[in-house]
């Protein structure tokens, strides 16, 4: 019997018009399908590449390696304070323009201009070509025609996005109803940043799957609660307070009894003393009223909302007033780079800093459990020993994600004559 109300249709899955049959994971093990996703998804949707705080002043820049979109980009704050994005390529002979030591590693810094390491061509922060070494040796070179190639860039709630589709819809409309519902969250107050990175041996969608359902949590993470609490949690299982979908985007809303817990015996000794844990620091900072898009069920036991902004950007907003982002950057059909970034209101005392450290380290301990499980899943679904998998109603957002991906691929195939048609079904 459900502890929380389900929609009138009897299940979330049917409520969102999704099929209830077992699903194929061919879309996560086929190299051909991944090649289609690169063009159909990663070159056609808004990709979050960072936050405005990473560009504090004129000339601040960072690069992003976007292997799935087949390129590298430079994001920079220009002389007017505007954020711009460029393809990271010199117009002379195609050398990567901005990099340090290792061409495939991302970099950041502050500069007045970009200078190519190869022949010294220089570009202003607005992308204009300002200097050509031995210019008189060239043939009728008009410098105004050889500026950096711009990439469409925009901001939403302080998050910087790029898009490689010349016909992309505006970012605000792309973020839709779910984006609008949390746009006023004070992300800009949470500038204390801890960022983690992992190379994961699985298809990018499998890690999103893992974070868009918590059906796994009472089992995979059982030991992270005290023994008695863990038994209780497994007995209850997991049910979301609510799910919601808007276009390609989705949200899972969860209860959160651990910040602070009803009974101190529920949590580990270190958590009792530091008043902190996976759900965050129990003593939440004052950040004013929360936006209406949070806690969609209006439930008093609300603890956390996980938003997936398609394709690969998740925002997790926690009741004790902090947030977390996840990014999944594919590097092949069965590998991706995962980034998990925690954002807090900056602590003023050493004690507050230590409380945040416990939340950060807890995230890491859970993340290590999740990451390794994925590789175990990838290798076995690649065996094709089993090809169809039943998903329960608490895994509804997995069906939605994979269906959305397949639809993007199908649309792209239809719109682009000559595209290979052999997509995974």
């Amino acid at each position, binding site marked *: 019997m459900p502890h929380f109300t389900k929609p009138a249709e009897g299940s979330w899955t049917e409520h969102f018009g999704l099929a209830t049959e077992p699903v194929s994971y061919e879309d996560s093990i086929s190299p051909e399908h991944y090649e289609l996703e690169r063009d159909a998804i990663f070159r056609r949707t808004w990709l979050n590449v960072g936050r405005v705080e990473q560009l504090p002043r004129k000339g601040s820049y960072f690069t992003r390696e976007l292997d799935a979109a087949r390129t590298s980009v430079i994001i920079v704050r220009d002389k007017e304070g505007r954020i711009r994005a460029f393809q990271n390529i010199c117009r002379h002979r195609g050398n990567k323009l901005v990099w340090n030591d290792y061409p495939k590693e991302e970099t950041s810094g502050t500069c007045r201009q970009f200078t190519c390491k190869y022949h010294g061509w220089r570009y202003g922060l607005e992308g204009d070509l300002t200097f050509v070494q031995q210019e008189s040796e060239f043939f009728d070179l008009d410098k105004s025609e050889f500026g950096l190639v711009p990439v469409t860039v925009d901001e939403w709630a302080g998050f910087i996005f790029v898009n490689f589709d010349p016909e992309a819809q505006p970012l605000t409309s792309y973020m839709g109803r779910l984006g609008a519902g949390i746009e006023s969250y004070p992300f800009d107050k949470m500038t*204390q940043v801890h960022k983690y990175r*992992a190379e994961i041996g699985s298809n990018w969608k499998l890690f999103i799957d893992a974070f868009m359902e918590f059906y796994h949590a009472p089992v995979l993470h059982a030991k992270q609660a005290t023994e008695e609490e863990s038994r209780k949690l497994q007995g209850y299982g997991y049910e979301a307070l609510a799910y919601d979908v808007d276009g390609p985007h989705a949200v899972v809303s969860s209860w959160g009894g651990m910040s602070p817990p009803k009974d101190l015996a529920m949590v580990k000794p270190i958590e009792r*003393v530091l008043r902190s844990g996976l759900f965050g620091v129990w003593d939440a900072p004052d950040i004013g009223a929360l936006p209406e898009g949070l806690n969609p069920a209006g439930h008093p036991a609300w603890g956390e909302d996980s938003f997936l902004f398609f394709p690969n950007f998740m925002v997790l907003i926690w009741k004790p007033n902090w947030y977390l982002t996840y990014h999944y950057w594919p590097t092949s059909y069965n590998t991706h780079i995962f980034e998990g970034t925690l954002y807090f209101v900056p602590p003023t005392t*050493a004690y507050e800093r230590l409380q945040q450290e416990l939340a950060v380290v807890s995230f890491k301990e859970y993340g290590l459990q999740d*990451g*390794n499980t994925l590789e175990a899943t990838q290798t076995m679904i690649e065996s094709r020993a089993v090809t169809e998998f039943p998903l329960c109603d608490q895994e509804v957002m997995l069906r939605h994600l994979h269906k959305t991906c397949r639809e993007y691929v199908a649309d792209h195939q239809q719109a682009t004559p000559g595209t290979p048609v052999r997509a995974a079904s």
Partner: protein
Amino acid sequence: MALLPADFADLEPFADWALPSERDRYGKRLATPMADLQAFYDAAFPRLQDGTDYLKSVRLEGISDEDRRLLWLFAALVTVSFPVEVWRQPRVPDSGAATLDVVVEPGP
């Protein structure tokens, strides 16, 4: 010369845990036998309540070297609390070759 504030002189033998980065604290945890992790925990955990009372009065702005090391030492206790309180081994069980490395972290 004392590395930690005078009130925490009893933790001086464990001052080598006062490492500035989470990457280093985690690396030391993986490289340390369980018995030594337990010894550090058994010495430092009973001082954590005093430590939090003390660190509440320490502002991060202009923090002294001694206080900074005490903060790092207790941050290392946070890292070590998982093997001692949960895993009974230095590494997260079943985490195999998985890594999750810090690439940006605030100081101190």
